[in-house]
């Protein structure tokens, strides 16, 4: 239910039905009459403080700027219209792409598993020698044609080096 002061506020705003407004005016106390005057004071102060003056409004012309913006909008190249796919066809295409990538991933995994491993020879002969006071390691590596490659590793003057024979 509206308070008495809310009724005063509606009366001040001319928002009460005529009969109700007349009845209220007839029974206003001196304090209520003063409240109405006080409301008018604040309203008038607000209007006078907030409303732009005639001088401020005199130069107002929004059309010039608006017209430019409308021209710019019209001059912009028309956007290319692309027909939107239906949700169903988008879903179907997405499922197809997923299936293709899954298949490719599975094939790649299988290929890695079945890939031929490089043949590793374990038929090397390795012997340690002492030559001219220095250590040497001789490694005999046979190949598939029955030939043999020998590698000799010398340890001298704290420098390691390979010599192929």
């Amino acid at each position: 239910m509206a308070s008495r002061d809310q009724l005063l506020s509606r009366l001040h705003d001319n928002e009460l039905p005529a009969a109700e407004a007349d009845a209220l005016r007839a029974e206003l106390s001196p304090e209520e009459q003063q409240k109405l005057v006080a409301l008018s004071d604040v309203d008038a102060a607000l209007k006078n403080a907030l409303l732009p003056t005639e001088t401020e409004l005199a130069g107002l012309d929004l059309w010039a700027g608006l017209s430019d913006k409308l021209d710019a909008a019209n001059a912009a190249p028309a956007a290319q219209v692309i027909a939107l796919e239906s949700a169903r066809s988008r879903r179907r295409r997405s499922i197809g792409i997923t299936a293709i990538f899954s298949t490719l991933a599975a094939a790649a995994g299988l290929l890695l598993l079945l890939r031929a491993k490089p043949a590793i020879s374990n038929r090397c002969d390795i012997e340690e020698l002492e030559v001219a006071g220095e250590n040497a390691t001789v490694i005999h590596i046979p190949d598939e044609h029955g030939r043999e490659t020998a590698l000799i590793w010398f340890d001298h003057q704290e420098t390691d080096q390979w010599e192929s024979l």
Partner: protein
Amino acid sequence: MTAKATEPSKQATSESAGPASAATADKAALRQDEAALIERIRRGDRAAFRVLVDRYQRRVYSLALGFVRDPDEARDISQEAFLKVYRHLDTFHGQSNFYTWLYRITVNLCIDLRRKAGRGNQSEFDERIAHEEAGSPADALSPGRLRFDPAKALHNRELRERLQAALEQLSETHRSVLLLREIEGLSYKEIAEVLDCPEGTVMSRLFHARRLMQQMLLDFTEPGSPKEAAKSA
């Protein structure tokens, strides 16, 4: 341009009210005229749009200025509001008045700008007044009159600054209601249309907004008024 670029008549006040039927007829004629203009704009008639801009630019600018207090920002918001109107005219079906639609766009732009600028509302105040009971001492209007002539508020810097500070204390919803009433002179029904809320809410918000304004302006009220006496006690 064939349409007349006049501003719609403001809400009738007790001082200037004419016969209610004449005001209703004026509004009906305005609505019909604007419906025709809108139809022309939809068909690409830019001159018709200019008529609407010329008709409403001062009021839209004043409303925006009331919110943002910066002439440049108010001008930008006004232009943006009209651009939105032009771009979205197809969504306006004429169920409400054109100007209430335009004001709604303007108010929303103002609120958006204030929020982006960190000048958002104080929800605490909303909460507080929402819980105040009607009839409690805090719910009473002040009978204290201003010590200054309100007509000179524009030239009284101190009072002007206090009024603006008081407005800043209001939530966006309360400020919107107060500005639509005081600057645009809209009726409760029209404000309800702009803010898309019931008329009862408009009445309540307006009442509370004014009450807060009175509280903020206590220093400017006449000594000896009941409110002042309560304050000094």
